[in-house]
């Protein structure tokens, strides 16, 4: 199962400029994969395609055996809500909501507030934010904000976690914390984690490192750890 990409390509605009071509890969359930490459190589583009946020121009993507390019909108949104978590370089916290309200936001889609509340508080405690649950994002440090954003991505206990440079705007210590949280998700909870990063050190913390060069997948280092 996991995530399967078959001959995926992506072009933008007209005249079409090709960003990704002929990418085939398989990510097994529970794997922690990092995507690396130079700026503009197409890492983010690939991540968005693998995570249903964007459509490929060629090829197909299957997640949990489902062809997501053929899924209807309702199923797709349900799948995203229940099975996927996202972390971006910027935290995208909603300024009008407190930390815990931000974390609970995904649970409102299908009225799962009561069911998910204990887990949300558990995550906050684990990330050292127990005392700061009722603070607004502007009252939190950058590192704390990013941890809230990760808690929000994890509150639905997703199968898949997608992270686009999650440490991109953090200092070394905070970046380290985030990395250990992500590793934890994969190792202890069996989550499938796909992470884009610039940092070769962090890239090596993953089980498997995929390097993209000019829209092609060239190096696929596997079997660490």
């Amino acid at each position: 199962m996991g995530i399967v990409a078959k001959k995926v390509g992506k072009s933008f605009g007209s005249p079409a400029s090709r960003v990704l071509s002929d990418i085939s890969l398989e990510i097994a359930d529970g794997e922690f994969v990092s995507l690396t490459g130079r700026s503009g190589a197409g890492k983010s583009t690939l991540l968005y395609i693998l995570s249903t946020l964007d459509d490929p121009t060629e090829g197909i993507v299957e997640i949990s055996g489902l062809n997501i390019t053929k899924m209807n909108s309702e199923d797709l949104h349900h799948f995203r809500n229940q099975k996927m978590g996202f972390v971006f370089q910027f935290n995208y916290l909603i300024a009008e909501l407190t930390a815990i309200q931000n974390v609970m936001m995904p649970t409102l889609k299908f009225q799962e507030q009561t069911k998910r509340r204990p887990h949300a508080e558990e995550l906050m405690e684990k990330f050292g934010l127990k005392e700061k649950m009722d603070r607004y994002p502007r009252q939190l440090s950058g590192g704390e904000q990013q941890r809230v954003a990760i808690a929000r991505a994890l509150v639905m206990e997703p199968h898949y976690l997608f992270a686009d440079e999650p440490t991109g705007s953090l200092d070394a210590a905070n970046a380290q914390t985030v990395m250990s949280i992500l590793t934890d998700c994969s190792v202890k909870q069996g989550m499938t984690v796909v992470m884009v990063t610039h940092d070769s050190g962090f890239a090596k913390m993953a089980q498997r490192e995929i390097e993209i060069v000019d829209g092609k997948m060239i190096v696929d280092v596997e079997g660490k750890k």
Partner: protein
Amino acid sequence: MIFLAIRYLLERRRQTVLTLLGVFFGTTAFVSVSGFFLGFQGYMVQQLVNNSAQVHIEARQDYLGPHDLDSSFFASDVGHVFWTPQPAGVKGYLGVQSPEAWYRRLDADPRVSAYSPILTAAALFNLGSVSVAANLIGCNPAQQAKVTSVANYMITGRFTDISTGGNRLILGDELMKRIGAGMQQTVLVSVGRNEAVPFKIVGRFSTGSRGVDLQAYGALADVQKVNFTPNRVNEIAVRLQDYRDADLLARSWSRLGPERVESWGDLSQNIKSVFSIQTTLRYFMITTVFIVAGFGIYNILNMTVSQKRQDIAILRAMGYDTFDIVMLFFAQGLIVGVFGTLFGLVCGYLFCRYLQTISFMQASPSNPEGHLHIALDPFIYLQASFLAVFSTAVASILPARAAGKLTPIDIIRQGG
């Protein structure tokens, strides 16, 4: 989503209040302006329909046209007739042709609440050396009181005091003053070249309208006698169960006999055109206010959407779909609209109640304090709510739809 919409609104209180004020003022203006104009119109209509009959069945008298007599004199012998001088004057009848038939018809019609046969004569009232010309209205006072409100305007005496007959009169205030007569005095009344007949003044009324107050009422039989026309009636005044039936009934009755049948509305065309100008003006004003309020909501929501692009992106990534995002922004507009409307309705209502306490018009027996008449018709409030909510909905749906069309990927690529 409603939860988040409310959070957004509460965090931007100043903008929220400003947009709310737009709808609020629109609604308040609608309610009070409509209340004022419709109150005024209602008052005028009430004056018209309560003070006088709603349908008049009158002996028809038409003006003679220059060629109306051609056929009677010359049949079709000649093509053209030239008259010197041309025929002029009126043709028709001096009385209602078959009053009994009308009475039977009116008695049988359930839409008729009362009717009163009347003989109006142009009379000369003499007291000593003073003589004043005025209308003398002969009626059966019990019936007349049901048709017009004259009985409510009695200052001295009762309107029914003339019912026993025996040459008694009730005079309008103006006429009373002009003759210089007092109560219980006897005046001489003559019609045309007929001999003067003494009448005793047993009552006095004042409506505030000079034309009406320059009239006198007597028993129908007495007036028929001074006029030397026993049994003649030149008008039947009719009151209906519902005055709004007047036009329809007048039209259908006018086909039943030679009489001219007119509704209160036919006799007040000028007032009706004033009403329709007022209505046009009112809607024009209100539409303007709501368009302005709508633009306010549209602008602020548009701004909110562009400020909240990042939130939209992350919500979409969480699995919220287009509909959720549309609702997030549409709800904000609608919440502001509904609350603005509610406050506007309450405030408009209170303002109307306040206006009602202002003494503005001339005092009259039916309105002793001279208060303004303000309509508090629920329909006004319904209409105001509908218009306000409708205009906010229209103003909100456009930015909300634009928000729904944003795709998360483009926003995230721009780094937020």
